[in-house]
């Protein structure tokens, strides 16, 4: 049976792992490779590295650390941040990443998703979506979220965008519910359930994990394939081995690496 994935997300800025609250005020969390190895040893199912400085600064990720991570870890990982072309994606994949995730560049130029799918297969192409609930009750996407000063709202409804990216060739979607991000009050179940109903491809929940219960809730109530989190893992609030025991106790299928 397919396991539900537990995915620590490492936000990378200037070659270090950082974490902010609601995408602001980044605090240094440690060395990329050290944290990657720690999570691998604890039983993380996959890692996501988000180069949050890349898109706002108009540059792509620096591949040296991608290769260092690829050499050392034996679980899959995805790299996001500033991937704007097939050539950049190729370089990141050749450095050893298993998947690439596009967010802002896909909003700038949606055909990028199709170009990546044609070049590498849909299974390599993750589309990250940053979503905010607006005053009219609709969720809409945000871009350039790595830098609050440059963040933009292109006006696109999140649920429309989810349908469109699948048609273009997204092999997986990470839905980051920004209203919940970093505040540890639980995943945005309402939004994720609506997203789930529209996603035939794997859907990963992001934003809001604060306790083990939140992970159980998002798997049970929103039927997501994976749950991504950062601060609860970095800060030691939730330990992955204990989390997996907890989920197993709730009859949620998780990987057990014997």
């Amino acid at each position, binding site marked *: 049976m397919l396991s539900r994935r537990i995915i620590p997300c490492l936000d990378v800025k200037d070659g270090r792992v950082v974490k902010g609250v609601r995408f602001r005020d980044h605090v240094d969390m440690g060395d990329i490779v050290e944290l990657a190895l720690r999570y691998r040893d604890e039983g993380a199912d996959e890692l996501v590295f988000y180069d949050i400085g890349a898109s706002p600064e108009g540059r792509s990720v620096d591949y040296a650390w991608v290769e260092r991570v690829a050499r050392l870890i034996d679980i899959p990982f995805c790299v996001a941040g500033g991937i704007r072309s097939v050539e950049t994606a190729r370089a990141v994949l050749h450095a050893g990443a298993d998947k690439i995730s596009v967010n802002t560049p896909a909003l700038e130029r949606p055909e990028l998703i199709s170009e990546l799918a044609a070049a590498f297969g849909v299974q*390599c192409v993750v589309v990250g979506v940053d979503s905010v609930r607006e005053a009219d009750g609709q969720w809409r996407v945000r871009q350039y979220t790595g830098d609050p000063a440059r963040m933009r709202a292109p006006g696109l409804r999140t649920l429309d965008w989810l349908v469109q990216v699948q048609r273009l060739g997204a092999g997986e979607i990470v839905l980051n519910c920004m209203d919940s991000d970093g505040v540890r009050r639980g995943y945005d179940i309402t939004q994720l359930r609506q997203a789930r109903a529209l996603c035939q491809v794997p859907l990963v929940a992001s934003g809001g994990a604060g306790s083990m219960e939140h992970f159980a809730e998002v798997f049970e109530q929103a039927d997501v*394939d994976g749950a991504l989190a950062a601060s609860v893992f970095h800060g030691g609030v939730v330990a992955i081995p204990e989390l997996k025991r907890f989920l197993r106790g709730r009859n949620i299928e998780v990987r057990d690496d014997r």
Partner: protein
Amino acid sequence: MRVVLVDGGGSNIGSVRYALQRLGVDAELTADPERIRAADRVILPGVGAAAEGMRRLRRYGLVEVLRTLQRPLLGVCLGMQLLFEHSEEEDVDCLGLLPGRVTRLRPGPGVRVPHMGWNTLEKNRDAPLLEGIESGDHAYFVHGYAAPVGEACLASTTHGRRFAAVVQRGNVAGAQFHPERSARVGARLLRNFIEYGLA
């Protein structure tokens, strides 16, 4: 022991090479027919689409080399699918080293495609390639097409339907999952392949 990785341009070549390095094996990356024929172990990695994978093998003149290889050959992910007769993905003829056709996985209730993540293996029979790997062990899969459970199937996995996860017939073997990204189980499969060949 000379281990070569067939350079078919697949994007997981680096990862497979690193996985072998973690086992102390320095594999040579090559598309040279002579070097591939002369190797003790040959690994055909692959990520992407079947038609493009076959085009690359033809362009480098490797189709016959792989078809007539005497030494143990291991296909990984798309590399395993290419070992079969045909793939439904863009309707392409493959190497034909194993009987059967690769077909698309269909989405359904609770079944998302591509099949992405850690799924359990079910052993059909014991083989040196699967030493230390048991039914219920998890391996990491990422694919939208899958090979049938035929005579060559050593282990299967279910996602919507049951499909071949590890295959072997004679000197030809394959893993649908990614051993380079499947933690202990993946390392064990690669080590078994290097140490035992396909005896």
